[in-house]
């Protein structure tokens, strides 16, 4: 190997080392900048708190691994560039290999156990006394249904669907459905919820698969035609929040928004009374 080749090797090694260093520094800096501008929206549910914590813990773990591996790569590229040396004939080290088998295995086990517990809590039965609402997704908006004073949802039957008179396809022969309150929560109305009161949202889909995504609540659940899926959570702040559709559902997927208003129990009761059917 000639001296000029070794010079080129040195330059490339330096460039690559610097590039990887910049990558690590840039990633850290960008994440710090993003914390102020491009981060998860402010949390507004009780269930979101442990989720955010688990996310931050995971982010810390993968950031450490990221810095370690990119750093080692940069270091090795610089140290072991071609300087006319002979490479070492070294290709087995059982203890070393077991080390980087076992450490990730332990970390992964820890994450699995933590996440499994949290996942089970998220999917536990909603507590008694939870508000129950139905949300139906359709191209390209959301409708909601409250059970009305009788506390029971009326039967649905698609044969009775009528875009104006009966958009939720309530079965008019079912007395339980007479007092059901149906709202278009994409346009005129909003899905009203009570602060600090758990709510179970039962999801239906009218046409294709949609996904009920409320970023502030860390909630996402697909609405699947032919099934009723459900999720429950507890809003922790009053205010107005946005529903987004997170599953591609057609050309206007991007406009498929809905509105959630979280209010106190008194405000909610007053609102509900005002909605009673004439």
């Amino acid at each position, binding site marked *: 190997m000639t001296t000029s080749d070794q010079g080129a090797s040195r330059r490339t090694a330096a460039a690559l080392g610097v590039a990887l260093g910049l990558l690590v520094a840039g990633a850290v800096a960008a994440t710090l900048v993003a914390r102020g501008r491009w981060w998860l929206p402010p949390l507004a549910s009780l269930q979101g708190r442990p989720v955010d914590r688990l996310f931050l813990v*995971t982010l810390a773990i993968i950031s450490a691994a990221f810095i370690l591996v990119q750093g080692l790569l940069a270091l090795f590229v610089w140290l072991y560039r071609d300087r006319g040396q*002979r*490479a070492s004939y070294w*290709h087995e080290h059982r203890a070393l290999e077991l080390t980087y*088998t076992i450490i990730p295995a332990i970390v992964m086990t820890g994450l699995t156990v933590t996440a499994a517990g*949290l996942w089970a809590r998220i999917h536990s039965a909603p507590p008694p006394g939870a508000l129950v609402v139905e949300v139906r997704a359709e191209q390209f908006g959301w409708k909601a249904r409250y059970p009305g004073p009788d506390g029971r949802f009326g039967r649905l039957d698609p044969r009775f669907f009528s875009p104006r008179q009966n958009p939720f396809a309530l079965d008019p022969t079912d007395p339980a459905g007479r007092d059901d309150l149906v709202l278009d929560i994409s346009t005129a109305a909003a899905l009203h919820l009570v602060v600090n009161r758990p709510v179970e949202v039962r999801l239906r889909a009218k046409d294709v698969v949609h996904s009920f995504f409320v970023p502030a609540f860390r909630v996402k659940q697909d609405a*699947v035609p032919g099934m009723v899926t459900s999720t429950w959570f507890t809003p922790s702040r009053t205010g107005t929040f946005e529903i987004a559709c997170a599953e591609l559902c057609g050309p206007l997927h991007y406009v498929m*928004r809905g509105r959630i208003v979280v209010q106190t129990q008194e405000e909610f009761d007053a609102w509900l009374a005002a909605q009673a059917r004439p």
Partner: protein
Amino acid sequence: MAHAIPHVEAHTAAELSFWRRYIFSQDHKVIGIQYALTSMAMAILGGLLAIFIRLQLGWPGRSWPLLGRLFPGGMPEGQMSQAFYLAAVTMHGTIMIFFVLTTLLTGGFGNFLIPLMIGARDMAFPFLNMLSYWLYPPAIVVLLASFFVSGGAAGGGWTAYPPLSALPQAAPGSGPGQTLWLVALAILIVAFLFGSLNYITTVLQLRTRGMSMLRLPLTVWALFVTAILALLAFPVLLAAAIMLLFDRLGGTSFFIPAGLVVGTTPVDHAGGNPLLWQHLFWFLGHPEVYVLILPPMGMVSDILANNARKPIFGYRFMVGSIVAIAFLSFLVWGHHMYTSGMHPLLGTAFMTTTLVIAVPSAIKTFNWLATLWRGKIRFTSAMLFALGFLSLFVTGGLTGIVLAQPPVDIYFHDTFFVVAHFHFVMASAAIFAAFAGTYYWFPKMFGRMLDERLGRWHFWLTFAGIYATFFPMHYAGFMGMMRRIYSPQLYAHLQGLAPLNVFVSLAAFVLFAAQFIFLYNFFRSLFRGARAERNPWGATTLEWTTPSPPPHGNWGPALPVVHRWAYDYSPPGAAEDFLPQAAPLAVPVGGEPAGSGGDEQHGR
């Protein structure tokens, strides 16, 4: 063994016509190059579609009069229609995953390398191999025809979830475009199955004398295991695609439940379940990710060892982790479905299997690092891309740990965080390995060297461009920006993203433009590149003992005989810093180490 296969005589003896030699060839090398060149053409198209996507996301709603004149259908008045945007998203994914990466890695590199690296004269079934390639262009024609049918190309995403993809009335892209999409995929899957059968049989049956399974280079191991994966996974998607075609055209209801109303019109179907498609699709879809990443892992292992002049570290663990990853890849499909409405217990099970995959992935990563340790690193273009692969694979793999945990994935599922994740771990890493492989094996394929200076330019711009394009997408995902939306402008929680999206778009344009350096280098070097010698990289594996390019039948009258594993780089006592696999066992110190002496006489 290979010498017993009658077609060998036809290969070496007969003078073939131009058509039999270059067009309807049964020579694995020609077929590999055909696959690679066709994939390159499709990659340009797939990249162009990405440019359209980024044009829209960078400047939503902006009018581009010039493009309006070029594409009056998709961009009336210069403004991209929503249907065209979704068609671009769908076709970008479909083309890049199935028509570029799968075809390039298994069809291109797999075809070219397997027989040469195991010391065979050709694939076990050369005619089937030719058929495999010749199913690919018709699949492309059918796929691209969908741009010109009413409603345009499919717009339901590469995942094609029904009922959106099943009901023509549900969206413009769900019309004939979706039917053609399914037919194109079905044709291509048959091609993959032909190829996979061939690779598996070839590796098992046609290894030359001395080439035991544990002497196989990791490239061959990876391609072999990939072929098994593809053979087991693709038929499931083929079946699902046929079922969906029946739902669309035959009035069946595999995926369509009762009671649907599209717009104001009831749908006349009953009894199906949309989740069935998701299970079937991801039963292929996840192994498919490993179909795209295992061959890169193998190729990068060989290129790292060669350019660090050091044996690959932990060969047995490397083989074991390839097999482990492949096995586990069949047990993780549900991690795409945490929010789909499947039973939560399944979520727990799929999380466990998914996080287990992190372990063999970590083994591979650290083994690659250990391969560099105390090596003697040569920064060829191939090596730069292989090192780039390592960096990208780690970056993309780590974010998978976030997504694997269902409570956290609830938030990140179907956001740009996922887009960033798979573009690093699968798309970018795989394409970096493909570039590394091209710089490395181009001399063997065409008998000429690629220009190293252009190669370095290509590397630096691509490496910077990839990170600049995909890294910021993580932050769009943090904010909750959904995938496949035509514009984020309407959402309160996505306000403030515009500068980030503009930056990503500009980076993507630079990234795309940088690829023309590669194209220029590729086609210029085909004709003007420096002549390649037999073994320009001082490599150990068998393909470097035959002339560049190898003749029909690959070897002279006698097949090479293998005496050692594939990684004797810098062995103690040898004069040179490598011992080819074909070098006889006893090498006199200071003697001729290369096994090329014996078969020099068979050269061209």
